[in-house]
């Protein structure tokens, strides 16, 4: 089965990930810009990072037959540095012109401070001005419900097309309001600590598979890119068909990401040959 990893931090992972993903059917990954584990001080550090994910990573992925796409953003954890954020934002348009950059992400909120909200607004407005897709990070654990509500409030005050915005890391507490407001949502699956493959399938069964993306966790912390394949196994073990799995784990990423014409992988429909009459 062909799979798309819509949220994958390749720079934190080894080539062995690419090899194993390729062997398990992954045909494309999309890499949002994220936090490096420390707060960066210089705009140039971001610019080189964006060059790495827009120029170098596609070549590394290509060695395993995997397409690599990316997003650019200043992580919400670094939004307290307003001067830095504004300076980095000025460079976004040059990356929007790169052949594999799909838009702005992951922007969003961490502690939902005023500076974070201002940064989120600036990121979304810039994306809309340049007709880009947006990927929004919502806070984890105890901050999730409040932070997600705040994200929705910020977006409600802006002139946005909800179909072009993906609100990520939703859980049972937050999926409903995000879908009701017309946005795409994403589950991020961790080996422990956050959303699990089983709970993700529960939510798919409850809310249906429209406007829904499933990502593994793949970063420099405790994470596992193959939680995505575990989720597919769980989905199939509950009796859902291969085509239904393809709709969620391949075609939905094509539908959302494909709103940017640079993402040219098309949805798949399995056809069964008619029996040959003898």
């Amino acid at each position, binding site marked *: 089965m062909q799979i798309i990893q819509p949220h994958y931090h390749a720079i934190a992972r080894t080539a062995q990930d690419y090899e194993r993903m390729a062997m398990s059917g992954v045909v494309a990954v999309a890499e949002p810009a994220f936090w490096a584990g420390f707060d960066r001080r210089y705009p140039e550090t971001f610019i080189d990072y964006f060059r790495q994910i827009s120029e170098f990573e596609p070549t590394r992925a290509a060695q395993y037959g995997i397409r690599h796409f990316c997003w650019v953003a200043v992580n919400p954890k670094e939004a307290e540095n307003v001067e830095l954020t504004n300076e980095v934002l000025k460079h976004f348009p040059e990356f929007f012109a790169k052949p594999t950059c799909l838009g702005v992400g992951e922007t969003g909120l961490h502690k939902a401070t005023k500076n974070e909200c201002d940064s989120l607004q600036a990121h979304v407005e810039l994306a809309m001005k340049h007709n880009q897709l947006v990927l929004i990070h919502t806070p984890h*654990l105890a901050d999730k419900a409040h932070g997600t509500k705040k994200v929705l409030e910020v977006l409600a005050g802006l002139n946005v097309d909800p179909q072009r915005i993906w609100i990520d890391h939703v859980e049972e507490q937050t999926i409903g309001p995000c879908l009701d407001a017309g946005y795409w949502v994403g589950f991020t699956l961790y080996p*422990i*600590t*956050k959303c*699990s493959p*089983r*709970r993700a399938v*529960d939510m798919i*069964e*409850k809310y249906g598979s429209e406007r829904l993306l499933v990502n593994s966790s793949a970063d420099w912390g405790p994470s596992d890119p193959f939680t995505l394949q575990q989720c597919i196994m769980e989905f199939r073990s509950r009796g859902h068909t291969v085509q239904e799995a393809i709709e969620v784990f391949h075609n939905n990423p094509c539908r959302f990401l494909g709103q940017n014409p640079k993402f040219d992988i098309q949805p798949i429909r399995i056809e069964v040959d008619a029996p040959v009459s003898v």
Partner: protein
Amino acid sequence: MLSPHQVVEKDYLEHRYMLLEIAAYLDRYDAALQRTGEVPVGTPAKLKLLDQALAVLRAPASEKGRTYDLLELFAK
């Protein structure tokens, strides 16, 4: 060896996760009942055991410890 505070902090997220898994398991059962329209004759024995296990966890620890008590419960 860890201090009491270290014990709590070291594995809190993992145990929070396990409780959410139990909640999701019970929700899944309720959803299946609703979807199929099946009317069970009482609570299934395995779910009753889990309910009793949760009561063991809520109660003060016995002399032999909660883990021992749960293993005894599941061995019945």
